[in-house]
Structures are given as C-alpha cells and as structure tokens.
C-alpha cells in the first residue's frame, strides 16, 4: 500500500486498484464492475442495498468464507471471487 492509501487486490483474477477504507463493492464499482455474484439460476447480481441487508453483493474472499462486498473493507493482496450459487454438488 502506498502513501495515499492505494492498494491492489484481485477480483476473479483481474487486478483491481482500491484505497484503504473502501469497501470491496465500492472499489469494484469504481473499476466499472457491477456484477459480483451468480444467482441460483445463474443470473448476474451485484451491489443492491449497500447496507448489508440484501446479501446480493456476496463474494468469496481468499478462497475461504463469503462476505458482503458492501461491508468488507479491501485489503492489499486480497483474493476476491464471484460466488456461484448455481454451482451444484
């Protein structure tokens, strides 16, 4: 992270620039990305309520748990991935 708080993270493999204190959703929207999830029937979804209620912006971070992109602050080197709800067992 540099002096003005700029940092880098990845979304589905793509390098994204964010700033300290920004939510993942805000950083993605600033980079022109609005679809961050695939729904149960495979429809694209993204940031909707912006206050942690709707869970539409849910993403997976660092290969482990799901977070709401509107609430999780970006961190340098974070790996963010689309959650694909249509992916079946």
């Amino acid at each position, binding site marked *: 992270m540099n002096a003005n708080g700029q940092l880098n993270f990845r979304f589905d493999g793509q390098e994204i620039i964010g700033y300290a204190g920004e939510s993942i959703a805000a950083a993605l929207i600033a980079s022109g990305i609005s679809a961050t999830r695939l729904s149960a029937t495979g429809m694209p979804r993204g940031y909707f309520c912006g206050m942690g209620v709707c869970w539409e912006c849910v993403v997976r971070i660092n290969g*482990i*748990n*799901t977070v709401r992109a509107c609430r999780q602050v970006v961190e340098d080197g974070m790996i963010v991935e689309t959650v694909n*709800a249509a*992916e*079946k*067992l």
Partner: protein
Amino acid sequence: MDLPKVADIVIIGAGISGLSVALPIAKAGLSVAVLDKNEPWSDASGANAGTLSIQVKRAEVLSLIYESIERWKRMPEDYGIEVGFGQPGGIRVATTEAEYNQLEKSVEVQKNKGIDVRMLNREAVRQLGPWLGPNVMAGSLCLYDSYSNPLVAGNAMVAGARKLGGVIAGGNRVSEIRRNAMSDIDRFSIKTVSGDTIHASHVVNAAGAWAGEISSMLGVKLPMEVDVNMLTVTEPSPPIFNRVVTHVGGILSLKQLPNGTCLIGGGWQGRGSVSSGTKNIDYERFLHNMRVAADVIPKIRDLHILRTWAGFEAVAPDALPIMGQLGEDDHVWTLGCARGGYSLAPALGARLAEMILNPSKRDTLLQFSPQRFAP
C-alpha cells in the same frame, strides 16, 4: 381446507408417521383424511435433519431399518413423489478412547443383527473422509446410511397422498372424538375446534407430541414425554463433505444437501413445552451443537449460519416406537416414534396400514404395541 363428512380412516397428525400410514391406505383405495392442528409437517417432521442413518439406531429397531430405507428410496416408484432422497453412506465417528470402545461394541451388535457395517481406523476413516478433523480417531462406515431432505419430503408426501384421493387438512385441531354405536361406518365422530365433524370407522393417532392428548380423547392413557429438538442450517457452499456424519459420543448429525447447505442436528434440546406452545433455541446447547460439528468437520466453521429452528417430538418412556392397536377397540390405532422416527416411519406406517386393512396381520411387531404401557 374443507373436510369431507365421512372417511374410512381418519388420521390425526400430518407428520411423517401420519402420512406414512395415509399413503399405503390411500393406495389400497380406502378413503383417508389426515387432520393436523397446524400446517402439515410443522413439528418433529419439519424440525429434523432427515438423517436416515442405520448406525445411530437402537438395536431393537434394526430389523426394520433396511426395509424402511428401501421404502424411502422407492417413494418415486411407489407413489410418484420426489422426497430429496440420497444414499451417500454414513460415517459415525469417535473422538476419544472411550468412544472408540463404545463404537466397536455398537458395530458388533449391528453386525450380529445383519447390518453391513465396518470399523475404520484413523487412517482408513481419513481416506474416506479427508475433511474429518484431527480429533476424529476412528469411525464406522455403513454404505446404506442415507438422508431425505425434510423440506422436500413433506410437500411431496402431502402431494402424493392427495393424488391418491387422500384429504390432507392442516389447520384442523381435533377437539373431541365421540364413539358412536359399534357399527363399522360412522363408528367415530371427530370434531374439530372450528366446528366441523368428520365420521370415520377407524382412527389413527399419529399426533406426535400431542399423541397423549388425543389418546385421552379416546379414553386411553399413553405416557409420553416430549423432546424439543433443535436444528441449524448454513449458507450454501461448494462441496465440503460427501457423507452423512454422526457421532458415537456427542450428539450430532451432519450432512451437506445437493443445494450446498449443511444441515446440523442430532437432537440437542431446545427450550419449551407443548402446553405453552413455545419451542425456542437454547443458547448454550446450540453452541455445544455447533462445536461438536466444527470439531468433526472443521471446514464448516467458515460458513454462515442462516437459520435455526426447533420442533416437538414425543418420546415413549422406553424411547422405542409405539405402533399398533390403542386400547380395547380394534378400530383405534396409534403410530409414533422418536429417536429414529423419520427413518422408520415408512416401514412402520406400511405395517400399520396392513394391520388395519387385514385382521390376519394384527399380531406383527407386538413388541412396539402400546399395550406395553397398559396398567
């Protein structure tokens, strides 16, 4: 829903027990009406994890378990319904030396009863379940362990019974059962709280936690205790584990359903009572339930918990099924089963239907007869 005026058989309770009797009876061509005070499937049947595990059954019921799981599996052929059945096989784990010994003994008993089950040591159990936690020191494996998703099965069984002409009527609490002349038709008048009356020649008490109450209306005492079982479901996740997992020491049942959600249960007790109608989560026991689960399959700790719920389940004093003629009248029947009732209901229900339909079959499974509690 409007009640018919008459039915050959009225079943009280539209849970797994009641519907398991209703399906074969309706298929045999008799008219059947199933009454429930709430929505069908809204207590023990809805509030259980749908684990069809052979390995956690008591020795006394093992003779029925293969048949019952087979009946679960055959529901699409028998009744044209999809009940969310899966047969991934099950692993029952031990995490301490004492549990290991207990598991070995249990496997021996099961083998003697003809169950195909085997012990797995630490390495072998990990080969089958690399997702098991480091505290798991051994397990037993039964490839016939299965599940049926209760959220799917309930609607399916209701729909199946309706397709066969059965009436499944939720929102009909029975307030009074009157015994008329000893004729075969119109033997009983069953009144509901909303003022409807339905006449029947047979009555089946499958009212679960309310079975004692219904028995009293029929003039028979049925000693029942009530469990309040808790259940938890997680958010959907990519595959984590692929077996039905149970625990020999701690109370646990764990499975991941085709939609990716994990169902965590086993029978930890919530708070509440039938008389107050409350059935709530007990904070500390809920936490214990989650800890046993995370100990056995550590990866589920990264999942969000979305919902918990609780349901009443009736338990006989000896925790065995209650099935057969209730009292002196051979037109009054009962079916109930805790701690395994979901697994066993299809077999017990089919047998009870046979008993009702065919007087020559009435001496089967006497060990489960409610007569054992007669004073």
